[in-house]
């Protein structure tokens, strides 16, 4: 197992290098530069600014400089926020996304799994139809509709909760977490229902039933692990996704997460900020996929033995 982890981590290095290179090349290939603005700069000023950020050097040298900094963990200065480094922006934004995204995924896993398993156990009853109908709605209504509706109802009309903002008050977390959790909960519910039905119809469960085991112990002792397999493969990349921020949730609720920086960074050609967040996202994807693979081994003896 140790060797497996080391091998995966070693493969991660060239992968991240490819990601950084591609992001760097694509971003520099887009028309327009970070210091183009509605007010055109004087050529003299443009030159001074480019010299300050080494943009006057040949691209290969800029790339070399970027990689050298990257290896030292320095993602460079942000071009759009003049006195701030990309590391600082990520250090500020990541905890926000981790908290909001983590809580949303936790709620999604708990509620979605419960609804999915109950629906599978009571297949074709109202306990199946009702949650699944709601789940179809949840999957199909986009977050950019759910979020404003939640604000309108709970913040503007009822005045129960703040409509956004970030000052570490748990009340401010309720609406963004709920809005972000909605589609995930719905998806997890559908996923868990399918998975549970498949597992409950598999031969080893039939054997357990034939042995006369009560339904409760079939589920709690035998069925739950294989049921979680699809959920684990879903959660790996999804968690990496929420950690790197949800642009819509952050914009609508005014949260200082990194998704918003990524979006405005791309519009403003903030090269370092966008490449930095892309590399971070790549690293998170690799890390969580590795974690998901480790979970497989723990959940499924077949994977363990194959390894």
């Amino acid at each position, binding site marked *: 197992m140790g060797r497996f982890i080391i091998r995966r981590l070693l493969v991660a290095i060239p992968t991240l290098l490819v990601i950084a290179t591609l992001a760097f090349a694509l971003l520099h290939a887009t028309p327009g530069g970070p210091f183009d603005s509605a007010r055109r700069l004087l050529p003299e000023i443009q030159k001074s600014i480019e010299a*300050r950020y080494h943009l006057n050097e040949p691209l290969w040298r800029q790339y070399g400089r970027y990689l050298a900094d990257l290896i030292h963990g320095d993602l460079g200065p942000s071009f759009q*926020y003049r006195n701030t480094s990309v590391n600082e922006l990520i250090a500020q934004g990541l905890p926000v996304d981790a908290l909001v995204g983590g809580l949303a995924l936790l709620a999604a896993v708990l509620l979605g799994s419960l609804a999915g398993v109950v629906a599978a156990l009571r297949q074709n009853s109202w306990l199946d139809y009702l949650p699944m109908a709601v789940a179809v709605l949840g999957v199909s209504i986009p977050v950019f509709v759910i979020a404003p509706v939640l604000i309108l109802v709970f913040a503007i009309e009822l005045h129960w909760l703040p*409509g*956004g903002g970030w000052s570490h008050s748990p009340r401010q977390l309720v609406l963004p977490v709920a809005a972000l959790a909605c589609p995930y909960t719905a998806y997890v519910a559908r996923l868990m229902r399918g998975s549970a039905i498949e597992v409950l119809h598999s031969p080893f469960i039939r054997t357990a039933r034939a042995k006369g085991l009560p339904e409760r112990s079939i589920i709690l002792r035998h069925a739950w692990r294989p049921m979680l397999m699809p959920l684990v493969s879903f959660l790996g990349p999804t968690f990496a996704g929420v950690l790197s921020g949800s642009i819509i949730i952050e914009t609508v609720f005014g949260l200082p997460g990194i998704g918003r920086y990524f979006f405005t960074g791309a519009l403003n050609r903030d090269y370092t900020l966008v490449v930095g967040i892309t590399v971070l996202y790549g690293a998170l994807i690799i890390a969580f996929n590795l974690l998901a693979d480790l979970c497989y081994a723990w959940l499924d003896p077949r994977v363990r033995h194959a390894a």
Partner: protein
Amino acid sequence: MNAVGRGLLLAAALLCACQQHDRGGAAAPTLKISNVLAADQTLVRALDATPRTLDPSLLTDIPAQHVTDDLFEGLTSLAVDGTVIPGVASSWQVSADGRSWTFHLRPEARWSNGDAVVAEDFVYAWRREVDPKTAAEPAPSLAPLQNAMAIIAGKLPVSELGVVALDARTLRVVLNAPTPYLLYLLSDSFMQPLHRPTLERFGDDWVRPEHIVSNGPFVLADELTGNRIGLRKNPRYWAADTVRLQRLIYLPFEDRSAQVTRFEAGDVEFTDSFPGAQYHWLKSRLGDQVISGPYLGIFMVGFQMNHGPFAANQALRQALSMAVDRDILTQRVRDGLYLPAYTLVPPLPDYQAPEPAWAKWSPTQRHAAARKLYAQAGYSTAHPLRVELMYNTDPDNRANYEALSAMWRANLGAEVQPYNEEFRVMLQDLQLHKPTLFQDAWIGDFPDPLTFLQLFQSSHPQNYGQYSNARFDALLTAAGAEPDNAKRVADFAAAEQLVDDQAVCLPLYFYASRHLLKPYVRGFQINVQDRNLSRYLYVLEHSGS
């Protein structure tokens, strides 16, 4: 952001439908406001974007300027109605030729750490601004100061800048030419003083809340990039006894719809703007809380004068301009938010641009004349003008161009196809002079015709249409050197007449500033520069929402 906007609109429409049923669209029915000052003088203001820096010498974005207007004060400042008033300087004299100004600094002006604000603080800040090493984007705004442009170009040392501290409280400013708008310039961020010891000690980090030393009505208390900027009253400000707000919170938004939502939720009390397309709906819903007024900006369509169908075809440009029904555009498409424009320069206190005679004609008369010019230009129904119109990807803009295209088709038979490009792609194409018909807009730096007219000077970097006219250039140069204001204004009027007669651009409407303001927040007055200093604002006692 498109998606966000659409979602908000949909949700808004849903709510609007329910509300009209419930309470006939009445605004804030439960809010009770009394006439006494609220005990808690805290105000939450929204910003249209996250400020890119709070360093007054470096900032180029309007949201940052709102914050630094509260943190710093220049030699002059702005009154609540936007007119210029004494700031750190209590008085000044101008030499007869209008080129040498002597400012007397008030002795009670203090930095937030207690140091006196001295003339040397201005010299230091302005020299830093024009120093090529600083790479300050707004540096060319100091162009009226003697030698500024040569210093920016690296041809002269910063010590040659036309500013001298005669003593701690006297500052001499030497200009290239009389500059009547100087007093407005002096109130701007890039002319505000800097506390040299702080900058030298902390370098780029000097603007952080733990280090910053400022001289305005407020000081920076806390800042979290992209989230909030907290200010508190500066007790050392020389006019601190007139400032009523104790705390001020700026919340940056990347999306205008989100400002509206948070305003309605009561989290924001004064928005920086709102989506223009929501004006009508907001007005019916929030009534007097929706505030708009003239803003020093023009929205227009530019012509490429160097190549393509509009080059050397004045009749065609005029035909296109006369075929646009600006009243329909401003009243129907933009819901009456903006004022129709027939001239390049918006109305100013000392200057009224000469409007073309056809501005007063009936639509039928105007369309007939436009068709005649269109035919004269060599086009007809059988041989229509086919051209593309480039604009910036912004949902707020789209309706304008759809309407223009429809007007040109109906009134002339021209086939104008609008297409959009992302902002920076558009800028690059403009710099390469690619498009022949394009979106153009300008926000004036100060209330003076020069800021608009210079756009068409042949040497101006922003002259995307490549208009070049020796007489126009000569008129602007003459106006620049003219000490007599009446003659100066006459030169500007002649220059403007030239660009309007030749239809060098197609003015559509003058901008409007637009805000949402809670009725218990007072001390606000609309002004053309849309600079609303928080030192004048205060909060009345209120209950309910």
